[in-house]
């Protein structure tokens, strides 16, 4: 609501106005709200932006591990092996995905991202033995070539969806919803609809594209069962099938996905990112990832399919600590999107020419009415560091080889951090992390995560009030 990129002039109240002018700043109509109302009145259309929810909500940061001491025996941090291997999709598929790490790359489209970035993601992920995911707009040859394991999304829009790419995928992800905009479809504004993107999506170049929010060929969960069977029949029951949901009514949705036959359920919390959608969706729809993982795990436990159906969690996963806490709460793996774009230089003040020489991008941020560190203008296609763009010149700002190394390094650090915490908890496998290893620092996070408030045995809503 504080975005002034449309050049609007505001005469905001200063902090001391209440004293010097006898006024009182309203909490309800504070300066940000007043600016937003004026902007809405000026433009006549809602804000569209990228990234995920920016509001503060209970998060994995509000949890800490009770690592080993006298009552638990730790593994030697630098010598003893801690397994990070992760297998996804063995429930019905002949060829489950075998990953070397529980961290995967989330679905992000060619169109929202440049071809160079998709290639860097593929090469970086492959270097650490994990998977990448296509997005709304289909599969590019570059990402197929660069990704050792590629998950092919089946989205409501079905842009570029075809049987040849389906058969050359390693898994299929049927996307019902996304954490940034559960219940809504994607957007790609005209400035990012290049000739190539338009061709892949069978759309006129330059139009403001609105993706569908419902699948075209099925509606309810009973139909989803039949849809998943169709995909299995087409792929001869070889590929794992994921079902991705935006975190809203998580327990019900996870149960329905399992009943429909999903091998893997992906739950994307409200902090999950997007390249472009309405701001009102991003900030006001869905539940935090912390709450979502607990509800999803409870649904799998109730159906007695833990170990049979895998849970992948996404939405605001940034560090190895986040990964470890998600696993301890019941996830088998996580997916990351925004964080890996940050690893590639998103919101940095420089980009690296030929992957070497730093060049200031500050002026280009200013042209967008923003600055490094707070930019969320992915929808413009004018990404100052060349990530969320289709502009041939801007795209050159990410060198695929440089980018691949950054992605590899970042994923490697996450994997090392997860293993470090697991060893300290006395686990020889990161998947042995459990809820009993965690306590909460706030009452809200204790209630959501269903772990005790630190220093107590109180779990709000479970033990006592």
């Amino acid at each position, binding site marked *: 609501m504080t975005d002034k990129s449309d050049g609007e002039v505001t005469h905001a109240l200063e902090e001391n106005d209440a004293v010097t002018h006898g006024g009182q700043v309203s909490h309800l109509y504070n300066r940000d709200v007043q600016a937003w109302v004026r902007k809405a009145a000026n433009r006549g259309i809602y804000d569209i932006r990228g990234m995920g929810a920016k509001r503060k909500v209970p998060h994995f940061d509000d949890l800490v591990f009770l690592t080993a001491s006298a009552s638990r025996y730790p593994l030697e941090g630098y010598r003893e092996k801690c397994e990070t291997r992760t297998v996804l999709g063995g429930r019905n598929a002949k060829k489950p995905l075998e990953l070397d790490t529980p961290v995967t790359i989330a679905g992000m489209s060619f169109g929202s991202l440049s071809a160079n970035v998709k290639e860097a993601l593929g090469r970086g992920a492959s270097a650490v033995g994990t998977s990448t995911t296509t997005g709304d707009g289909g599969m590019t040859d570059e990402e197929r070539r660069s990704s050792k394991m590629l998950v092919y999304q089946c989205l409501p829009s079905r842009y570029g969806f075809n049987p040849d790419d389906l058969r050359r995928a390693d898994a299929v992800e049927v996307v019902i919803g996304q954490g940034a905009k559960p219940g809504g479809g994607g957007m790609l504004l005209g400035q990012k609809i290049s000739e190539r993107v338009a061709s892949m999506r069978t759309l006129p170049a330059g139009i403001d594209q609105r993706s*569908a929010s419902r699948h075209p060929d099925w509606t309810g969960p009973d139909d989803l069962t*039949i849809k998943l069977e169709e995909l299995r029949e087409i792929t001869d029951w070889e590929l794992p099938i994921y079902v991705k949901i935006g975190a809203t009514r998580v327990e019900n949705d996870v149960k329905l996905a399992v009943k429909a036959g999903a091998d893997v359920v992906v739950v994307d919390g409200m902090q999950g990112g997007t390249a472009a959608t309405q701001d009102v969706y991003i900030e006001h729809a869905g539940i935090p990832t912390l709450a979502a993982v607990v509800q999803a795990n409870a649904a799998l436990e109730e159906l007695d399919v833990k170990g049979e159906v895998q849970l992948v969690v996404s939405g605001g996963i940034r560090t190895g600590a986040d990964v470890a806490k998600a696993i301890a709460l019941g996830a088998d793996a996580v997916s990351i999107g925004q964080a890996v774009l940050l690893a590639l230089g998103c919101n940095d003040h420089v980009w690296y020419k030929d992957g070497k020489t730093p060049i200031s991008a500050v002026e280009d941020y200013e042209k967008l009415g923003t600055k490094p560190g707070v930019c969320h203008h992915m929808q413009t296609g004018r990404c100052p560091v060349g990530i969320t763009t289709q502009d041939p010149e801007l795209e050159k700002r990410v060198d695929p080889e440089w980018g691949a190394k950054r992605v590899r390094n970042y994923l490697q650090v996450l994997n090392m951090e997860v293993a470090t915490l697991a060893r300290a908890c006395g686990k020889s496998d990161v998947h042995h992390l459990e809820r009993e290893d965690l306590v909460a620092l706030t009452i809200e996070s204790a209630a959501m995560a269903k772990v005790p408030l630190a220093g107590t045995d109180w779990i709000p809503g479970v033990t006592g009030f």
Partner: protein
Amino acid sequence: MEQEVRSRKALEWDLSESPVRQLNNYLHHEMAQDDVEEVRILNPDGAHHIAVGMDAPVRVEVMGNAGYYIGGMNKQAEITVHGSAGWSVAENIMSGVVRIDGYVSECAGASGHGGLVVVEKDASSRCGISMKGNDIVVGGDVGHFSAFMAQKGHLVVCGDAGDGLGDSLYEAVIYVRGEVKSLGADAQEEPMTGEDHATLAGLLERAGFDHRPEDFKRVASARKLYHWNSEHDQEY
């Protein structure tokens, strides 16, 4: 024609004895080794997923009523259902022909990229939803929200169309012979051109319908929703 059929290497597959999963596996892999040109599928009894994911220039004859997703993602094959079919027949069709002698349920030909879908009788709602280059010819009526968000290709309706026809259309074109109950957002009726007459005549001939192109009206996108516009905020 009859001699041609007899000269082909034909195969009969009885679904009451060998289920759909085995059938599709045969169609995807072993059929090519057997050099089969025609497969007659007996006793479909409403089964789903018959002949999905085909990628061979063969004829598939389904001898009775079929369920969901018949001919889904078809490439090259000519599939005929001698009966009616359920939801999403020929969804995501890429090429070839899928023909249904009877009626079809919802979402016929959804999201197809190429090829032809022919429904001899009526199609239910959302026929041609999200189509991306395929052609659909319906001998009877279509239900509401047909050709919703259709991007490319042609939907030919020889009967009437229900509410919301062509809502949020992109570049697909609809031809309707009967009445249109209502048009969807951004869809508009336009004059038929000589090119329309030629395209429509070709589609009707391929589908086997003997109607005059002059009796059809054209519905296409007004293209007012192609770019964000505050005057259209309720339609986004």
